[in-house]
């Protein structure tokens, strides 16, 4: 299946100079099960340019997480490949840092120590002072300067997610992978964190792949929205290009008529053309 582009999307809009960083080529992934092989993904083709913000949306169980796991290296494709800078991805590595769904912070360490452990593991050659500076800078960046010495168990969900993001960004990954990072948070914290993430992405310009269930979140954050068809053998159904000017403000894009066109076509995709009860 080729990547079909919707009416709104015009090929190669934003920063035409940016080179391709990630390339999914005829990617397929099949799990062996007692009842025989179960195809999760089939014929996934996508190119992601350096510095792009990509959101992935689709019904639960459609293989979004599996798709991102092929980038992080936790899942191996059974056919096709994923190339990062032209090299096939073999194993997990710090150039593709993950913000895990359950934060995966170590509860016996403080917020500071969690971030420090990552920096120290990935860049052991730096001096003690440099490491400390990096950790403090990134904790500041997510607004956690004062809570740095708190144990993870003493932090709220939103604060934990901030630590997880600080940890991921502190090692300066080429690709930042977020698996439904804000799903468990209340609406206000969620909006705050979306804005912080966007602000940080604007300054660091890493490439972001983010799974979400929230169309508005995707429209606010992403350059492109990848909408997946239903499994088994899910693939990319459609890609929406979201070319609102950056830096974005929630108010501005809500007033833009294109916002509703994009929103409606995403809703149409999810609830009419690929409704969950539809025969997959």
């Amino acid at each position: 299946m080729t990547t079909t582009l919707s009416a709104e999307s015009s090929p190669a809009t934003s920063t035409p100079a940016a080179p391709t960083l990630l390339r999914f080529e005829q990617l397929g992934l099949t799990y062996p099960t007692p009842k025989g092989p179960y195809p999760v993904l089939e014929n996934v083709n996508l190119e992601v340019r350096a510095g792009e913000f990509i959101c992935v949306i689709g019904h639960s169980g459609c293989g979004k997480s599996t798709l991102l796991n092929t980038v992080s290296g936790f899942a191996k494709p059974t056919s096709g490949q994923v190339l990062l800078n032209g090299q096939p991805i073999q194993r997990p590595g710090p150039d593709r840092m993950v913000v895990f769904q359950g934060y995966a912070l170590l509860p016996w360490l403080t917020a500071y120590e969690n971030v420090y452990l990552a920096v120290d593991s990935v860049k052991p050659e730096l001096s003690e002072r440099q490491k400390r500076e990096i950790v403090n800078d990134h904790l500041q960046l997510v607004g956690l300067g004062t809570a740095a010495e708190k144990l993870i168990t003493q932090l709220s969900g939103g604060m934990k997610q901030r630590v997880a993001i600080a940890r991921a960004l502190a090692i300066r990954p080429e690709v930042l992978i977020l698996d439904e990072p804000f799903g468990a948070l209340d609406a206000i914290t969620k909006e705050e964190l979306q804005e912080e993430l966007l602000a940080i992405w604007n300054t660091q310009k890493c490439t972001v792949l983010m799974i979400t269930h929230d169309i508005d979140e995707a429209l606010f954050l992403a350059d492109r929205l990848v909408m997946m068809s239903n499994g088994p053998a899910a693939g990319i159904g459609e890609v929406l290009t979201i070319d609102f000017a950056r830096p974005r403000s929630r108010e501005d894009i809500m007033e833009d008529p294109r916002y509703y066109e994009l929103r409606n076509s995403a809703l149409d995709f999810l609830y009419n053309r690929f409704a969950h009860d539809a025969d997959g």
Partner: protein
Amino acid sequence: MTTTPSSGFSLAQWWKRNRKTILPPIFGIGGFLLCWQLSASLGLTKLSGPLSLWTEERTRELLLYPFFDRGGLDKGLFLHTMSSLSRVALGYALAAVVGIGVGIAVGLNNNLNRAFDPLFQFLRMVAPLAWVPIALVMFQQNQPAAIFVIFITSIWPILINTAEGVRQIPQDYRNVALVLQMSKQKFFTKILLPSALPYIFTGLRISIGLAWLAIIAAEIVMPGTPGIGFFIWDANQNGYVSDIVLGVIWIGAIGLILDRFMAWIQTRLAVGR
């Protein structure tokens, strides 16, 4: 409790608040001792009653003077106990080191686990006393044989719990280590040990009780050296029943203290997490 100096009033208050936790064990233990004494006095059993600790002169002396040392084996019970404790400490420390080490290896490597788990499950069912002849044949010497009996009795809970603790490290933490390409040493000290620590301590706590339980079996093989196990064995050979009762009470009390001590360390660790 208030910090006012103990007046009649605050004492009464303290009693009111705590009597529900103090009275039942007093009644329970008192009732048990009473039944025991009655059954002994009525001749229902040949076992001396608790009062015999006082009425038998030899036993009373042992009860009142735990620190005397007339040389050789003629020592107070406290000194016997210390000899036993040092023996237990050695066997238990060995069991902790080997148990945690092998437990981690088995927990990390599924093939090792499949290879050895049946053996561990089998060996841990062997009673301490059964190890005595084997230990004697293996070492040909009393002291190492006794240490080995304590070691082999107490290692299994440490080993099995440590392995389980390592297996229970959440996949998320392992993934963090993978994506950061953490060194083995870092993974070990920053993730594996802290994550498995509660399990390891559960094992250590069960094992300290077992190590202490093994002391009698261990010291049976050590005639002529001081120790609480030997003391009981010796009293048994001589038919001093009230001495045996006293020795058993000492063993129970020390075991209780050891267990409480490990529990205390456990809670201290839990606070620091």
